[in-house]
C-alpha cells in the first residue's frame, strides 16, 4: 500500500491547474450554444476544430520532445477553444487549425510546454492568423438573419455581412446598436465574444471559483471605460461610448479569459493591478491608432512581456518600508 506524504493543512483538493481549465471549458458551453442559436452548427464546429487541433498538436509536440503527453491538464484544450471562439463564424475551418498550430508549436512548446510559456498561446495564435490572413477577420454575418450558416465553406460568399460595432467605432459617427442589443449579443462579431450578458455571468462564475482574479479584470475594465469616456469615438453620449467600447470586439472576452491566464499574469496583487491598467491602456491605444478595428490580442501579448517586471516592482513598492528598515538596522 502507498501512502502519500503531505504538509499540514490536509485539505482535499484536486490539481489546481486542471480544475481551472475545466472551469473555463464549462464556461464556453453557453457561449457556443448562443452562437449556435444565431448561426447554426458552423460556429460550434469551428470551436471544436480549434480544440481538437490544439490537443492533437500538443500531443505531437510532447512526443517530439520525447516527453509523456500531459493532455489532461486541459491547457491545450483551452487554447484551442479560445482561438476557435474568436474567429468569425464565416471563417474557413483551417483558420483555427493554423492559429492552434502557431500557438502550440511557436509559442508554447519551445518554451517548455504547459506552465512555462512567456506569452499567452491563444493570444499569440490569434495575432498570427490575424496578421497573416486579415481577409478572413472582421467580416461578420448578420445575426438577425435567422437562417443557419451553410456548413461548407464554398457557399459562404452569399451570406449577408454587416459591419460590427468595433468597425463602426473605428469609422466614427452614430452607433447603431442599443445597450440592450449589445447585452443580448444581437450584433455581428466573433463567435464567442458577442454575448455580453453571458460573458458577464461567466466572469462572475469564474470570479467566485477564483479562477480569475478581481485584481486584474476590474482595473482593466475601469481603464478601458475611463478612456472610452474621456475620448469618445461615437456620438451617443457618455454611456453610449462606454457601452459600445466595452461590448464591441473582443475586449471583454480577452479580459476574462486571456488576461487572467495564471501562467503569464503577475502573482503579486499590486503587480496584477498595474498589469490590468496597462492592458486596458494598450487595448484602447490599439483601437484608437491600430491597423485593425480590434487589437486586444496584440495588446495582451505586449502586456505579457511586462508581467515579470510588474510583479517585481509591485513587491518592492509594497515592501519598501521593510527593506529600508532592514537596511538601516544592518
Amino acid at each position, binding site marked *: 500500500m502507498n501512502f502519500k506524504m503531505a504538509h499540514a493543512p490536509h485539505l482535499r483538493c484536486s490539481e489546481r491547474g486542471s480544475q481551472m481549465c475545466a472551469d473555463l471549458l464549462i464556461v464556453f458551453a453557453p457561449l457556443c450554444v448562443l452562437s449556435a442559436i444565431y448561426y447554426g452548427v458552423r460556429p460550434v464546429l469551428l470551436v471544436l476544430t480549434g480544440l481538437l487541433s490544439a490537443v492533437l498538436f500538443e500531443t505531437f509536440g510532447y512526443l517530439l520532445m520525447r516527453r509523456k503527453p500531459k493532455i489532461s491538464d486541459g491547457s491545450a484544450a483551452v487554447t484551442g477553444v479560445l482561438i476557435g471562439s474568436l474567429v468569425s463564424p464565416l471563417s474557413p475551418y483551417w483558420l483555427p487549425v493554423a492559429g492552434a498550430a502557431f500557438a502550440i508549436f*511557436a509559442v508554447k512548446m*519551445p518554451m517548455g510546454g504547459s506552465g512555462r510559456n512567456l506569452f499567452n498561446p491563444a493570444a499569440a495564435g490569434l495575432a498570427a492568423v490575424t*496578421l*497573416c490572413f486579415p481577409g478572413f477577420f472582421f467580416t461578420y454575418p448578420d445575426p438577425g438573419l435567422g437562417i443557419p450558416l451553410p456548413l461548407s465553406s464554398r457557399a459562404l460568399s452569399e451570406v449577408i455581412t454587416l459591419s460590427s460595432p468595433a468597425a463602426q467605432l473605428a469609422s466614427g459617427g452614430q452607433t447603431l446598436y442599443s445597450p440592450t442589443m449589445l447585452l443580448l449579443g444581437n450584433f455581428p462579431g466573433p463567435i464567442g465574444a458577442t454575448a455580453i450578458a453571458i460573458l458577464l455571468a461567466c466572469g462572475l462564475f469564474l470570479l467566485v471559483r477564483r479562477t480569475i482574479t478581481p485584481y486584474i479584470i476590474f482595473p482593466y475594465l475601469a481603464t478601458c471605460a475611463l478612456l472610452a469616456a474621456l475620448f469618445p469615438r461615437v456620438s451617443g453620449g457618455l454611456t453610449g461610448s462606454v457601452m459600445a467600447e466595452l461590448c464591441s470586439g473582443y475586449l471583454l472576452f480577452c479580459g476574462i479569459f486571456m488576461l487572467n491566464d495564471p501562467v503569464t499574469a503577475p502573482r503579486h496583487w499590486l503587480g496584477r493591478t498595474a498589469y490590468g491598467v496597462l492592458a486596458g491602456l494598450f487595448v484602447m491605444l490599439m483601437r484608437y491608432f491600430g491597423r485593425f478595428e480590434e487589437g486586444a490580442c496584440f495588446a495582451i501579448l505586449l502586456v505579457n512581456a511586462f508581467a515579470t517586471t510588474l510583479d517585481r516592482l509591485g513587491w518592492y513598492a509594497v515592501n519598501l518600508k521593510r527593506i529600508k528598515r532592514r537596511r538601516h538596522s544592518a
Partner: protein
Amino acid sequence: MSKVEKQPFSKTMTEIKNVFLDTFLTKNIVLVQAIGITPILAAGVTLQKGVVLTLCTAAVLLPASLFMSLFGDKLPTWVRAPIYSVGAALILLGAAVLLDRSVSNELYASLYVFLPLTAVNTLVSYRAGGFSVSHVPVVALTDAIASSLGFGLVICVVSALREMASFGTLWGETLNFAIVLPEAALPYAAFLLLGFMAAFLQWIQSVIARRENASVRLNG
C-alpha cells in the same frame, strides 16, 4: 597592459582559432550575443539586401577593428566612438555610391536608410570599440572577419527564408509556391526566426556537450 606584445606563435594561433569559432559559431554574434539585430529585422527581407548588408558590415568592421586595435588604447575613451562612427560613415558613403552607380539603383533605393545606419550598428561599436581595443591586430581582424561572417550567415538565412515566404522568390528568381505569406516581411517574422535559430544553436551545442561528456566518462 591588457595587450600581450610578444607571445609564442602557437599560442596566438590557438587564440585566433578560439576567437574565430566563438564569434562565428558557438557564441554567434547575433544568435547568442544578440548584437546587430536591427538590420536583420528591418532590412533582411530579400537575399540580395542581406548580402549587401553583410558586405557593408564587413567593409566597415574590418578597417574599424584594425584601426581601434592599433591606436584605440592611445585615444581617450570619449574620442573612440566618434572616430570609428565617422570613419564608418565615410566608408558607407563610398559603398552607397558604388551600389547606386554600378550595381543596382533599385537595390540602393530599397535599402535607403539601413545602409548608412550600419555605421552606428551595435555590431561595430561592440566589436571595434570594445573587443579590438584590448587585443592585438591579428586577433582583432580575426574577430572582425568572424563577426561579419556570423552576422552574414544569420542575415542571409533569415532574408532568404523571408524572401521565399513573402514574395515566393529567391535572389529575384520566381519559385513556384502555392502559399505566399506577404506578412513574413514584417519584423515579427524575423524575431520568430531568430528565436528558433538561437534555440537550434543551443540544442546542437547541448547535444555536442552531452556526447563529449559521454566520451569522457567512457575514457576516464
